């Protein structure tokens, strides 16, 4: 099976570029040039160099001994939380800022939910001396205040999105409107494997460094490149896309994505898109989304701002439909427990997003001989307020 995007920009029946005419020139330019740019020798050298010396890659693959003992199996953590800026998001923003430079753009816009992508974008803009505007839902500006302050210190302008539920979906709408209004000098650094083709493919390629490293690191530590399974959280799905990428055609490796169930999949306060959604078009690609019978997008909810999104990247919709990957869910309460468990067993405070991946350890059967890799996509600094409030320290 081929799980990659085809030449028309589709993963199976999902993907494409459902864009208004106003966005056509920018998307066409990107579509025609992105592969040539990112496969060029100069680009590879600069990209790999920055990932190594600036981001701090390769990120460790850490055998979590006490966690493994508790679940009587072998659990490895891919430590994306140790990257510069604290999450996997920087892998993509380094790649896209280099693409933007090759395209001659000097104004950068981005959307952000948890603020991790906004922070990673503001960081690379500071690094390259480019102007940076980050759209962030007004609710997220409140609940992820430390990241807002960091973005401002880095010189970015943070514009609160005040439409809808004022979260990630609304920030994405505003960023798209900005791009329509500024079609010539601006590049939109989308933070996940969503949006019109070629974004899902481009972002997945930049994030694929995660699974590339997992394979040789696992080989080094266990003598085998393939684990039994890989687990990653999914909102739009970029860290999961990166963690799955080089295992897609290794059919023996089980792939598990974990969605945010919020207060539960039987409530209206949830973001479990694949569990509850149906096919449709949001943010310029055909995928699976949460919507009413009339085709209106429903407002999602999750304690984790980064997963609080009613859609999912088309690559995941296809992996779900083709049954290549399995998509489970975790509720806010399960996630908080899992975060505390990792913190006290391994001394690692995870981001709320990443704690979704940890939470499913309680929901699947692990055998003693199995090897499970969990992508620890981000660190918990930004979530301290939520943790403190919940645990009452």
């Amino acid at each position: 099976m081929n799980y990659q995007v085809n030449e028309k920009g589709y993963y199976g029946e999902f993907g494409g570029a459902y864009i208004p005419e106003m966005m056509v020139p920018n998307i066409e330019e990107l579509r025609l040039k992105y592969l040539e740019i990112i496969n060029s020798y100069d680009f590879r050298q600069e990209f790999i160099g920055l990932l190594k010396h600036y981001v701090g890659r390769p990120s460790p693959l850490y055998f979590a001994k006490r966690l493994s003992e508790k679940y009587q199996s072998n659990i490895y953590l891919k430590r994306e939380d140790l990257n510069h800026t604290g999450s996997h998001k920087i892998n993509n923003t380094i790649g896209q800022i280099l693409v933007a430079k090759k395209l001659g753009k000097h104004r950068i816009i981005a959307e952000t939910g948890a603020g991790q992508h906004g922070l990673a974008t503001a960081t690379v803009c500071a690094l390259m001396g480019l102007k940076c505007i980050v759209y962030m839902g007004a609710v997220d500006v409140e609940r992820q205040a430390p990241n807002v302050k960091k973005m401002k210190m880095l010189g970015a302008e943070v514009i609160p999105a005040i439409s809808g539920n004022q979260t990630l979906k609304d920030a994405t709408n505003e960023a798209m409107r900005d791009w329509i209004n500024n079609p010539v000098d601006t590049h939109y650094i989308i933070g996940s494997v969503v949006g019109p083709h070629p974004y899902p493919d481009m972002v997945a390629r930049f994030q694929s460094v995660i699974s590339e490293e997992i394979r040789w690191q696992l080989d080094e530590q266990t003598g085998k490149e393939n684990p039994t399974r890989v687990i990653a959280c999914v909102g739009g799905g970029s860290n999961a896309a990166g963690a799955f990428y080089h295992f897609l055609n290794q059919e023996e490796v089980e792939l598990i994505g974990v969605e945010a169930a919020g207060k539960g999949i039987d409530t209206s306060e949830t973001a479990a898109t694949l569990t509850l959604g149906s096919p449709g078009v949001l943010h310029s690609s055909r995928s699976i989304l949460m919507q009413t019978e009339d085709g209106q997008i429903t407002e999602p909810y999750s304690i984790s701002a980064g997963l609080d999104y009613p859609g999912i990247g088309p690559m995941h919709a296809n992996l779900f439909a083709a049954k290549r990957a399995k998509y489970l869910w975790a509720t806010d309460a399960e996630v908080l427990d899992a975060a505390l468990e990792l913190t006290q067993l391994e001394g690692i405070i995870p981001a709320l997003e990443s704690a979704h991946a940890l939470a499913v350890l309680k929901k699947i059967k692990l055998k003693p001989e199995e090897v499970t890799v969990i992508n620890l996509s981000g660190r918990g600094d930004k979530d301290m307020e939520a943790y403190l409030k919940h645990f009452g320290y």
Partner: protein
Amino acid sequence: MNNRINQLFQSKKERILSVYFTAGYPNLEDTVPIIQELVKNGVDLIEIGMPFSDPVADGPVIQHSSLISLRNGMSVRKLFDQLSDIRQSVDIPLILMGYINPVLQYGVEAFCEKCNKIGIDGLIIPDLPLDVYLEEFKTIFEANNLHNIFLITPQTSAERMKVIDDFSSGFIYMVSSNATTGAKSSVTDFQREYFERIKLSSLKNPRLIGFGISNAETFANACQFANGAIIGSAFVKAMEGNEPLEQKVSGFIRSIAADI
């Protein structure tokens, strides 16, 4: 095919006034009264906006009216119900404008058949791309006597414009500037160059200019370069307030073009 859009452009070549409004705004049952008032005031063509939760090509005014309309209970089904007898009182061309997802959920074929039955003449779906239209939608639109109205912008290349012109029937919607709907606009040098360029490019389809047309001056200006213009956000904004609908509509249309 007897399509009212073609009839309009055959009989009238200039100063065509097309008005967009959001169905179900300000009140759910205002849809049909607004159409009837617009007709009474001499508007040539009406674009009925189907509200969507995430209107990325629209500015604040239409975003707001869409939100209120959805809160009022508007849906595709409700709109079709409201319009079911519209052809008993209205003869001018009617176009539905909205985003692709509600159309997909209704079912493209069922949607187009319903439009045909009601007497809708065309559709404007900004996020339905040309290639998808040609592959999946064109035959269904044609079978139901519906024109698909394409947009062009200042950034649209000459080659692409030619392709869009080839596949257009009805008219071409010229977006006046690089902007979402309702952006403030007076005719800049940049736009003048774009308008002149299009005027000279000998497109086979008639053209209406839209986005940023908000008053008598911008309407008159746009009419110098195309067969007419489309007013959206400014009209939607004029529907706010407590005066009777009749007054709001006639007051606005008279302020744009007293001669219509």
